[in-house]
C-alpha cells in the first residue's frame, strides 16, 4: 500500500518536456499537417433538425473544375457492427450514421455529404452545388417533450432498452439503482427537501477545431494524422465505419488543442480516408468553429429531480433522484454515470435513483469532463444546501455528518478504499477563505464534487541510450502536461534526474496499445505502465551489474540510480550508474529496454470540495465571482502545478457552464449561438484567481498513490454558483445558466410574488 513519503522527483514542478515547442509555435497540432499533392475536404450539413433525405444529386458540384469527389451515406458500408471501446461507449453503427447521415438527418448540422477539392475555399463553394431533396419532419427538442406521449420519434426503430416488444420511444434506456427502503426513510425524516433542476446543453469548448489528414496507399493501407485524445480508438472506430481491419490503418496523433472528452470520438477521419481512396491524394479536413458547435459533442441538457429527508441532527434518512438527460440524436447520454455520481459523496442506507437516456433532435452527446456528474450533482448539492438552510446547520457540518469514507458501501456498488472527501471537507472548514466571514451584500456557496476515475489499458516502453539518458515511449496523447508526469515517475523510479528523461507519445505502430486520454486515467494507468517498465529496466540493470561483477543478480541492489552490491556481499567494486551500465550494454547483452502493458484496476475515486463568494447585481442580473477555492484529493500530486491547473481550469469551465454557457435553439432546432461571440466561455476579465489546496490521500492501487485529477474539478462549481447566488438573493434559482437575463427574470418574478 502506498504511503505518504519523501520523493526526489515526484512533487516537484519542472518545465514540461514539450514546453519549448509550445511557446515557440513549433508544436504541430491537428490543422498543421501538410503533405505533397494534398487536397481539401469539406462537409455539407443538414439545414434541418429533422428531415428525411429523399435524394442527393452532386452532379453540379462535380462539374466545378478542381472538385475531385463527392461522397454521402451511400458510399459507406451499411450494417457496421460492434461496440466502441473507450470512455463513451456506444455502437459503431450509430457512430457511422452520426458522421454521415443515411436516410434521415437527425439534427441541424448533421453531415449529409462531403466534397474533396483543390482548395478548402473551392470545396466550400462546391457544397452549395450539391442538391439535397429533404422531407422536413417535426423535430423534438427537449427532454420533457421527448418523453411525453405522442412526441415525434427521433428514431422510429428505437425501443426502450433496445428490445423489440414495446412501442417505439424516444427513451433509449432506463437505469435504476435502489437500496434499503426510501419510503420508510422519508417517513422517519424530520425534514424533507425536494427540487427540480435544469442544466442546459454545453460544449467542451476546446480552442482547437477537429482536424485530420488522411492518405490511402495502393495496397489499401490508410494513414491518418489527427488531433485526438486516443489514436488507438480512432483507429478502431475508423476501421469500424469503413469496414476495414485495424491493421490496415495507422493513426499518428498530433499535439491536441484541448478535448475535455470531445475528442474521444471521431467525425472526420473516415470521410477523409474515403475521399483519399476516391481521389488517390492526401485529403485534409478541418472543421470551422461553427461546425464544432453544430456537429460535435456537446454534453447533455438535463432535467433532474432530487428529494432528501433528514433527522433534525442532520442525519440523512433517505434520498431519491430522477434524472433525465438528452442524448442527442443517438443513444448514449451520460446518464449512467450521472446516476452513479449523484449520491456518491454520501453514506446512505435508503435511496432510489432512476435515469433516462432520451433522444432529441440535437447533436449526439459526447463525453465532457466527468460526463453526467455535473448535472446530477448540481441537483444533489443544491438540495443539500437547501437542507442545511432548513436545519440551520453549517453546510460543511451537514456534509461531514453524512459523508462517505473508507468502508462506505458506495451507492453505485463498490466499497470505498481510502478516499478523501472527509479530509477535503475538514480542509474547507479550516480554510482562511471559509473562516473569513463573507462580506456584506455577498453570497457564499459550497458544494462537493466526485468522479470515479477509470483504469483501462495502457502500454509503455522505456529505453536507455548509450549515455544513460532515458526515453519513455507511450501512447496517451498529452493534453495537459502528462509527458512531464511520465518523466517525473520514471525519474523517481529509476533514481535519476528529471532532465535526462524524455517522454514521447508514439503512433499506433510505434508503441503499444493505450486507451484514450480520458476518465482521468493517464497519469494513473499509463503512469503505472511507465513505472513498471522502469522496474523492468532496473531488473535488467541489476542483471548486467551482476554479470560485470560476477555475482548473482539477487545480490545487487538499486539505490539512487546505481547498482550496488547488497549489504553483506563481500566484493570491492564501485557502484555502477545507469550511464555506466548503458554505456557498457554492448558487452553485457545488448541494448537495454523495459516494457509493460496492463489493464489497470483500482483507479481510486476522486472527491473535491469547492466554495466561492459572489455578488449579484439586482439591476442587471449579472453575477460576479469574487473568489473561488478548490480543494481536491489528488492521491499524490506528481506535478503539483499541473494538478492545480486541472483544478483551476475545471473550476472555470464549471463556472462558465453555471453563469453563461448554453445552446440557444429556435423552435426549428437551429442553434442560434454557434460561435464564441454568442456562446460565451469565460474570459480572463470574468474570473478571479482560483485558490487551490491539494489533499493527498494516496491511492493504494498505485505505487506512488496517484488518483486521476482531471475531471472532478468541473463537478462542484455548478452547485457552488447556484448556492452562492441563492445565498446572495435570499431565494433559490434552480436552473442554469445564471446568466444576466435569467437572473433578472427570476428577481422580477420573485419581487412580484
Amino acid at each position, binding site marked *: 500500500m502506498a504511503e505518504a513519503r519523501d520523493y526526489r522527483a515526484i512533487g516537484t514542478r519542472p518545465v514540461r518536456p514539450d514546453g519549448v515547442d509550445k511557446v515557440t509555435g513549433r508544436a504541430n497540432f491537428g490543422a498543421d499537417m501538410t503533405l505533397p499533392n494534398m487536397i481539401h475536404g469539406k462537409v455539407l450539413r443538414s439545414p434541418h433538425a429533422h428531415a428525411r433525405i429523399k435524394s442527393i444529386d452532386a452532379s453540379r458540384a462535380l462539374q466545378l473544375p478542381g472538385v475531385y469527389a463527392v461522397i454521402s451515406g451511400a458510399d459507406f458500408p451499411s450494417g457496421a457492427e460492434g461496440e466502441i471501446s473507450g470512455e463513451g461507449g456506444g455502437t459503431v453503427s450509430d457512430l457511422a450514421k452520426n458522421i454521415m447521415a443515411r436516410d434521415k438527418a437527425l439534427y441541424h448540422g448533421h453531415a449529409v455529404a462531403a466534397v474533396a477539392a483543390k482548395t478548402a475555399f473551392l470545396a466550400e463553394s462546391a457544397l452549395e452545388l450539391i442538391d439535397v431533396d429533404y422531407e422536413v419532419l417535426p423535430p423534438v427538442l427537449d427532454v420533457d417533450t421527448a418523453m411525453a406521449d405522442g412526441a415525434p420519434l427521433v428514431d422510429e426503430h428505437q425501443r426502450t432498452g433496445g428490445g423489440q416488444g414495446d412501442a417505439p420511444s424516444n427513451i433509449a434506456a432506463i437505469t435504476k439503482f435502489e437500496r434499503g427502503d426510501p419510503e420508510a426513510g422519508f417517513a422517519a425524516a424530520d425534514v424533507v427537501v425536494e427540487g427540480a433542476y435544469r442544466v442546459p446543453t454545453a460544449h467542451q469548448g476546446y480552442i482547437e477545431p477537429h482536424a485530420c489528414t488522411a492518405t490511402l496507399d495502393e495496397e489499401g493501407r490508410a494513414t491518418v494524422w489527427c488531433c485526438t485524445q486516443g489514436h488507438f480508438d480512432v483507429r478502431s472506430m475508423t476501421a469500424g465505419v469503413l469496414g476495414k481491419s485495424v491493421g490496415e490503418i495507422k493513426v499518428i496523433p498530433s499535439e491536441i488543442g484541448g478535448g475535455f472528452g470531445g475528442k474521444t470520438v471521431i467525425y472526420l477521419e473516415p470521410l477523409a480516408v474515403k475521399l483519399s481512396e476516391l481521389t488517390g491524394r492526401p485529403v485534409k479536413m478541418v472543421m470551422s468553429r461553427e461546425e464544432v458547435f453544430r456537429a460535435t459533442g456537446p454534453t447533455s441538457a438535463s432535467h433532474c429531480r432530487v428529494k432528501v429527508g433528514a433527522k433534525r441532527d442532520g442525519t440523512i434518512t433517505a434520498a431519491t433522484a430522477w434524472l433525465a438527460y438528452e442524448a442527442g440524436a443517438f443513444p448514449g447520454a451520460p446518464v449512467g454515470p450521472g446516476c452513479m455520481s449523484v449520491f456518491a459523496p454520501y453514506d446512505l442506507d435508503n435511496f432510489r435513483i432512476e435515469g433516462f437516456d432520451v433522444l432529441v433532435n440535437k447533436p449526439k452527446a459526447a463525453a465532457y469532463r466527468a460526463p453526467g456528474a455535473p448535472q446530477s450533482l448540481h441537483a444533489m448539492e443544491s438540495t443539500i444546501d437547501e437542507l442545511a438552510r432548513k436545519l440551520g446547520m453549517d453546510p460543511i457540518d451537514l456534509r461531514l455528518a453524512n459523508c462517505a469514507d473508507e468502508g462506505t458501501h458506495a451507492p453505485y456498488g463498490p466499497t470505498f478504499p481510502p478516499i478523501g472527501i472527509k479530509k477535503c471537507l475538514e480542509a474547507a472548514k479550516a480554510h482562511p477563505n471559509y473562516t473569513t466571514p463573507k462580506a456584506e451584500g455577498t453570497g457564499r456557496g459550497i458544494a462537493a464534487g466526485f468522479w470515479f476515475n477509470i483504469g483501462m489499458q495502457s502500454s509503455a516502453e522505456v529505453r536507455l541510450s548509450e549515455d544513460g539518458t532515458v526515453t519513455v515511449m507511450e501512447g496517451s496523447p498529452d493534453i495537459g502536461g502528462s509527458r512531464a508526469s511520465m518523466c517525473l515517475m520514471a525519474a523517481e523510479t529509476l533514481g535519476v534526474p528529471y532532465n535526462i528523461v524524455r517522454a514521447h507519445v508514439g503512433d499506433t505502430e510505434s508503441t503499444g496499445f493505450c486507451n484514450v486520454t480520458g476518465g482521468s486515467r493517464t497519469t494513473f494507468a499509463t503512469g503505472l505502465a511507465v513505472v513498471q517498465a522502469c522496474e523492468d529496466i532496473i531488473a535488467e540493470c541489476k542483471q548486467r551489474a551482476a554479470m560485470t561483477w560476477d555475482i548473482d543478480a539477487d545480490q545487487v541492489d538499486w539505490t539512487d540510480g546505481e547498482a550496488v552490491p547488497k549489504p553483506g556481499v563481500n566484493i570491492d567494486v564501485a557502484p555502477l550508474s545507469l550511464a555506466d551500465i548503458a554505456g557498457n550494454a554492448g558487452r553485457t547483452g545488448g541494448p537495454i529496454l523495459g516494457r509493460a502493458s496492463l489493464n489497470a484496476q483500482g483507479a481510486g475515486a476522486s472527491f473535491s470540495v469547492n466554495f466561492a463568494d459572489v455578488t449579484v447585481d439586482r439591476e442587471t442580473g449579472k453575477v460576479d465571482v469574487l473568489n473561488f477555492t478548490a480543494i481536491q484529493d489528488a492521491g499524490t500530486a506528481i506535478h503539483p502545478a499541473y494538478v492545480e491547473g486541472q483544478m*483551476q481550469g475545471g*473550476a472555470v469551465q464549471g463556472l462558465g457552464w453555471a453563469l453563461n454557457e448554453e445552446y440557444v435553439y429556435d423552435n426549428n432546432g437551429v442553434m442560434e449561438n454557434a460561435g464564441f461571440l454568442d456562446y460565451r466561455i469565460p474570459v480572463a476579465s470574468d474570473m478571479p484567481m482560483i485558490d487551490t489546496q491539494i489533499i493527498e490521500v494516496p491511492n493504494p492501487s498505485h505505487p506512488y498513490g496517484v488518483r486521476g485529477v482531471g475531471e472532478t474539478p468541473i463537478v462542484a462549481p455548478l452547485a457552488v454558483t447556484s448556492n452562492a447566488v441563492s445565498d446572495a438573493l435570499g431565494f433559490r434559482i434552480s436552473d442554469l445558466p445564471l446568466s444576466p437575463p435569467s437572473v433578472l427574470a427570476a428577481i422580477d418574478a420573485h419581487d412580484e410574488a
Partner: protein
Amino acid sequence: MSKVHVVTNVNGEPREMLCEPQQSLLEVLRDELGMTGTKEGCATGDCGACSVMLNGRLVCSCLTLGVEAEGADITTIEGIAEGSQLHPVQRKFLEHAALQCGICTPGFIVATKALLDRNPNPDETTIRYWLAGNLCRCTGYDKIIRAVQDAATELAHEA
C-alpha cells in the same frame, strides 16, 4: 480570380507571396508561408489564437486580409524568441505551467508581449482586460496571469 503579389516583412525578414484576394493573413501565414505557429480557433476574431503584431498593433490575423500585409511589418509567435534565447514571457509561461494543451499559447504570448511593450507594469485588472480577447479553455487563466505578472517583474529588473 488571379492571385495578388504581396511583399511584406515577417519577423524581420522580407517575404514575397502570391495570395488569393479573399485569403486572410492567418491563411497566408499558415498555408503560403508555412508558419503554422499562429493558430485558428474560430476565424471570427473571438478567440485570439491567431494574434499577431501588424505594424506594431495587436490584431487577429483571421480578420486581416493577406493583401493588407503589403509593405507591413508582421511579428508572429515564431519571431518572439531572440535566436536561441526564449523571450522572458515564453520562459515565464513555462515556469508557471501557464499552458496545458498549448493551442492558445502562441496567441497569449504575442498578446502579452504587446501589452508589456506598451505598459511594463500592468496591474492584475489591466492584464485580465488586455487578455480578455484571448480564450483559454484549459487553465482558468490563473497561472497565465501570474506568468504575465512575473514576466513584467523580470523585464522591469532587466530594464
